[in-house]
């Protein structure tokens, strides 16, 4: 069975060229990068080359990149590391309700540790407004963290404006750019953020390598103490193959980004147009300010996981924010925070495209999707409507 993979915000396949770049560091050059003999020195050199490639992708200095094990670790380091480093200056942190769990749960941890946290609500498109950020800032605010692009609804935030507000007030600004780096052009000098998280496996690199950009001169308290790796800001023997892979993936992404963005956007627009032809299916997230390969919807009267299963049987792999598709058995907090009713949020379906997707993949999906929706609606007790929920206002589709 041919697999049509539409879950690139979960992870991307490994680029062949990246795999080739990694191989020597799994075999011949296995030395510890701190060792002074040849194989160690080659590993050290490879890490620094990777650092240069990653820094170049977002237009910062190599010395401003800290390699971590994942995007989640980068987010933890950013929030907890800055909060601890700046706690003498204040005890208030601002994050949004549309953050990844690694940001939300770091913020909740800090809340339990004595910091006050404001969770900003998005609008119906999942966007955090600069006005709401301005209102949330207090004299105690030391850190603001707003995600660059939502993996669930694809909305790209007005980070430049948000970061500018923080800068005016002298507050540190972090963005979780895990879903954005490698998918859209990012220039940190233009964005104006102080910290930015990324993960190599989101742009055709291997799992096990992430990075945090930390503006030069900023102090951060490490999460992991030990040796002198990463300038003493993240101890532990480096995952050399994964870091090398992330570096090579960053190099390829930089080179090919414009053509990939153009190509993927074309496929995505076709996908959105085609999916919305099915009745009572609504786009979630921002109609234009969204990741180039991102198409997310809610489908009335049926549930997301059952859609995923039927699609998977056909070799179509996608994602859902329905309660039944998450191990936590809770509908997506992101969708709920956007004002989408809980019953509609159960019908969430997310397609995220990659450059290896083809027009044929989209055509296949668009042929099969209405069949699956019809099939599940025939089983659903709500095939004739929500049974009065519309009148009670519990089911308001997003216009």
């Amino acid at each position, binding site marked *: 069975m041919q697999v049509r993979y539409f879950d690139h915000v979960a992870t991307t396949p490994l680029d062949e060229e990246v795999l080739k770049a990694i191989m020597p560091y799994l075999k011949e050059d296995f030395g510890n990068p701190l060792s002074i003999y040849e194989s160690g020195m080659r590993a050290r050199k490879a890490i620094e080359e990777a650092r240069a490639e990653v820094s170049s992708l977002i237009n910062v200095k190599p010395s401003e990149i800290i390699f971590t094990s994942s995007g989640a670790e980068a987010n933890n380091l950013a929030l907890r590391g800055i909060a601890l480093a700046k706690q003498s200056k204040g005890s208030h942190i601002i994050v949004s309700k549309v953050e990844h769990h690694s940001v939300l749960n770091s913020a909740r941890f800090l809340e339990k540790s004595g910091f006050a946290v404001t969770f900003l609500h998005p609008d119906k498109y999942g966007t955090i407004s600069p006005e709401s950020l301005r209102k949330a800032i207090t004299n105690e605010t030391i850190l603001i963290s707003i995600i660059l692009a939502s993996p669930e609804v694809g909305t790209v935030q007005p980070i430049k404006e948000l970061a500018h507000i923080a800068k005016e007030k002298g507050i540190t600004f972090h963005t979780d750019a895990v879903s954005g780096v490698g998918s859209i052009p990012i220039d940190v000098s233009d964005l104006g953020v102080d910290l930015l998280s990324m993960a190599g496996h989101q742009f055709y690199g291997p799992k096990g390598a992430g990075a945090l950009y930390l503006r030069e001169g900023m102090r951060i308290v490490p999460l992991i103490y030990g040796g002198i790796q990463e300038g003493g800001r993240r101890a532990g023997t480096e995952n050399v193959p994964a870091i090398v892979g992330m570096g090579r993936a960053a190099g390829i992404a930089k080179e090919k980004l414009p053509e990939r963005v153009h190509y993927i956007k074309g496929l995505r627009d076709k996908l959105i147009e085609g999916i919305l032809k099915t009745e009572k299916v609504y786009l979630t997230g921002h109609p234009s300010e969204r990741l180039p390969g991102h198409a997310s919807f809610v489908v009335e009267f049926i*549930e997301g996981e*059952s859609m995923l299963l039927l699609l998977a049987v056909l070799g179509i792999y996608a994602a859902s924010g*329905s*309660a039944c598709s998450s191990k936590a058995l809770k509908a997506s907090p992101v969708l709920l925070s956007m004002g989408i*009713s809980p019953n509609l949020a159960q019908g969430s379906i997310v397609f995220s495209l990659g450059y290896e997707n083809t027009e044929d993949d989209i055509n296949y999906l668009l042929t099969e999707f209405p069949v699956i929706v019809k099939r599940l609606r025939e*089983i659903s007790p709500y095939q004739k409507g929500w049974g009065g*929920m519309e009148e009670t206002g519990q089911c308001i589709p997003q216009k």
Partner: protein
Amino acid sequence: MYSAKVMEHFMNPRNVGEIENPDGVGEEGNPTCGDVMKITIRVSEGRIVDAKFQTFGCGAAIAVSSMITEMAKGKTIEEALLISKESVANELEGLPAQKMHCSNLGADALRKAIADYKDKQKK
């Protein structure tokens, strides 16, 4: 994640639909927090001769609904009341642990349908 039996019932659900003028109707669940199952039954001489379901829910919920209607058909009311969440899960050769409490509303929906039938009998 799911057993082959669960997938088989999910892909080819038995007894989908609604019995016209049923002898009993049972609905369990709430779409705002999860799955909803509606079961209608036809009863003749104290025996469930037909059962149909409609379900809003995940793969496990649909498989459970399909299986429970299969199990209920042919049983007397008393026998059908003995069908439990565990026995449905066993017939399906297991359900993931986290799905047990949310997907397995079928036994409750069936009980409600039987209670509805008994209520109607009293009138």
